[in-house]
């Protein structure tokens, strides 16, 4: 990937496209590239929706190659939700296509004339941006249909729904999947609002005529890729658990642990969670859509296939298999145990372009405020529809849990850096709370997801049963995760590389054979640290202090049933996470 496409939306005479060499950004991909560009080029104190902010869309380092699992795409900007740096990533088809087109990043900069909406098209021979106000206030599904009619189904789309156009801070960016459905989202941090502020409704990516990217050493690459795939397929999580049940397999387990945030984090167990568990969901999908409906990849080259297809009771497509976080946010967090209603909420979120975690958390806060009752599935659906319609109430909810809590005077608002917490109560799994509190991204379960610490040896080996060590573990996890986010690899590879050293080696071999580098585990660690350092510095300049690296007070004061725990990690310990 040798070029960066810069689209100046505020240029005199209308948006201008400039293609330039990657220059000093050479060798970077995914999160490494988005965060480096944002840190170097965006004034930290700028308004996130103003002309000085930039939206960077970058495929991973290996995207566009034949490397399995390399199809993640990163989106970076200054977040309108957190006020800090943001990287949010997604699956879908665009990453592989941009990689094949040789595009290391698309950078949307400046600000267009008010009221104009644009379509950006990228193909082998040309890049063009044209106004298209016929797309105004369309949902992502309608946008995808229009693009398919205009360009055929061999292209992919990156789009925003109504929420992005309204610049709501819960807005996501959608990426079409293998079936041309806008189901893969860079959800977190309001990245869709930044795309909306740039006036870009959709980016059509067409890689027709572009070959798969060639590795520096094809022989070694092929061998490493074979070992890589074999390692993923033989592991119980990546080869069996995820393909069979998807990520929602976690519902029963987290609930049993008493760490399943229920009814806006009031309880750690949801009595009827088995009705919305991954096991029930998979059985439902297979019964309605035929065996195999619960197993599907989100992009070409995925061998884990943790997704699936959700059909309604009449057997019609409704949405992709809702993820664990979605099922929790709209389910247990809101006291809703109706899997069909949750799937409908997922569909609406995808169509309007909303982060499912942020929306579920906002509705949970609204339920606590008494707007509707916990467990009111139809009421929750109606609230999400208000967001799509852009009513005043909908705009409040679509701006996230933090704002909803302020508007309705709710004290128990589960956010860090104004971003809603995901589906693991930090009073139950306290080490997760360390990552929620200290991540550069706001509360984010994927910020410390790459369970590779003892493999990489970051910070030395940790005794698993030692009472202490949560700070070290969280630090190591955040470093490893940041590095993997740069490769474009799906984070679900983490288990296989944790348990199987030969699979971790296969990943390193894959990267080295492709790039010609000689990367070691130490280099992976250094890469992760460098990115985190850049992100921390940006946040510091944007006004963040250690006081933002904290969980909300109620986690320290309110005991979480059934284990009656509070969050016990001291502030002074949290402040040690970045002391490496």
């Amino acid at each position: 990937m040798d070029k960066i496409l810069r689209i100046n939306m505020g240029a005199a005479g209308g948006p201008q496209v400039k293609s330039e060499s990657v220059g000093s950004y050479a060798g970077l991909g995914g999160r490494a590239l988005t965060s480096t560009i944002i840190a170097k080029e965006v004034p930290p104190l700028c308004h996130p929706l103003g002309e000085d902010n930039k939206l960077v869309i970058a495929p991973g380092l290996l995207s566009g190659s034949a490397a399995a699992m390399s199809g993640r795409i990163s989106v970076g900007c200054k977040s309108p939700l957190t006020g800090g740096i943001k990287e949010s990533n997604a699956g879908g088809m665009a990453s592989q296509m941009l990689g094949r087109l040789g595009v290391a990043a698309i950078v949307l900069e400046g600000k267009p004339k008010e009221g104009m909406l644009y379509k950006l098209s990228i193909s082998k021979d040309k890049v063009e941006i044209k106004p298209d106000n016929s797309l105004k206030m369309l949902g992502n599904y309608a946008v995808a249909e229009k693009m398919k009619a205009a360009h055929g189904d061999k292209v992919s789309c990156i789009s925003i729904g109504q929420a992005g156009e309204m610049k709501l801070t819960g807005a996501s960016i959608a990426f079409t999947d293998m079936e041309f459905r806008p189901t893969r989202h860079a959800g977190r941090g309001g990245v869709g609002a930044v795309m909306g502020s740039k006036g870009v409704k959709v980016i059509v990516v067409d890689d027709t005529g572009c070959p798969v990217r060639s590795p520096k050493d094809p022989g070694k690459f092929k061998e490493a890729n074979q070992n890589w795939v074999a390692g993923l397929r033989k592991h119980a999580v990546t080869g069996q658990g995820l393909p069979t049940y998807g990520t929602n397999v976690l519902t029963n387990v987290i609930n049993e642990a008493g760490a399943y945030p229920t009814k806006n984090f009031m309880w750690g167990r949801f009595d009827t969670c088995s009705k919305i568990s991954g096991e029930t969901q998979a059985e439902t999908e297979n019964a309605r859509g035929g065996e195999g409906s619960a197993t599907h990849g989100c992009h070409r080259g995925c061998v884990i296939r943790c997704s699936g297809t959700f059909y309604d009771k009449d057997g019609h497509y409704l949405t992709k298999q809702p993820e664990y976080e979605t099922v929790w946010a709209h389910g247990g967090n809101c006291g809703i145990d109706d899997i069909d209603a949750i799937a409908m909420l997922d569909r609406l979120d995808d169509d309007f372009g909303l982060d499912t975690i942020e929306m579920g958390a906002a509705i949970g806060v609204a339920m606590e405020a008494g707007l509707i009752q916990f467990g009111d599935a139809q009421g929750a659906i109606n609230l999400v529809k208000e967001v799509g319609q852009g009513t005043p109430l909908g705009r409040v909810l679509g701006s996230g849990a933090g704002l909803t809590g302020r508007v309705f005077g709710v004290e128990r608002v589960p956010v860090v850096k104004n971003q809603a917490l995901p589906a693991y109560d930090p009073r139950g799994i306290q080490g997760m709370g360390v990552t929620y509190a200290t991540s550069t991204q706001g509360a984010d379960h994927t910020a410390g997801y790459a369970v590779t610490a003892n493999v990489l040896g970051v910070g030395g080996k940790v005794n698993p049963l030692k009472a202490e060590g949560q700070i070290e573990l969280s630090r190591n996890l955040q470093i490893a995760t940041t590095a993997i986010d740069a490769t474009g690899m799906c984070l679900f590879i983490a288990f296989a590389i944790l348990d199987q050293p030969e699979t971790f080696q296969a990943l390193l071999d894959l990267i080295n054979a492709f790039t010609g580098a000689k990367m070691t585990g130490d280099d992976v660690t250094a890469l992760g640290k460098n990115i985190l350092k850049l992100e921390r510095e940006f946040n510091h300049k944007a006004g963040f202090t250690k006081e933002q690296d904290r969980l909300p007070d109620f986690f320290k004061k309110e005991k979480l049933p059934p284990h009656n725990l509070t969050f016990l990690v001291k502030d002074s310990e949290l402040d040690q996470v970045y002391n490496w």
Partner: protein
Amino acid sequence: MDAETTPRLTLTVTPGSLSRFLPLLGQGFTVQRPAGASVEGFLCRACGIARDYLRERVQTVFLNGKAIDDLAAAMVNDGSTIALSAAMPGLAGAVLRKGGAYAAMRRQISHAGPGDSRAGGPVSVTIKLFNLVARELGPGFLEQGVLIHGASLQDFFRRQDRGFGKIGRAADIDGRPVDFEKVPEIIPGNRLVLLALRPAGPHPG
């Protein structure tokens, strides 16, 4: 139906459809066995789960909602709940693993100390089987028969899509044939029911 004894509901279902009932096992079923055993002893000796399976395939075990690292040390008591899961994805999966590298991150919900257990009369223990463990061990338990609360069973039947009845070839309660579709109306909601499943043979003709 005798008011004193536990009713036995036997369902004969189409081949391959037994998996539809597996989510029931995640809600928990009751097992009555002699007291005085560790979790490992209880699961292996009393429930017949192979020791190697328990050590290798079962990666996360909860006793009364707390993650266990040493199955041979934690003791089972009357009213205990044991939940079994295969390896799980993500950080949470790694954190909850028995003896895993991230166990320190959940020490507040780890099972501490062995506890005690008195040998003697039978104890009632709730077993929950999740994910691949349910898929692999569940059919054996379901064919052998599991004690499930009638209300849970009624709710399970009532939540199924139209057409669920088509998987039922026959049903009986204590040997008395009943209509498969009417099972939720017939079984008592306030008592335990012994549910046993039988895969039907090939359809005649």
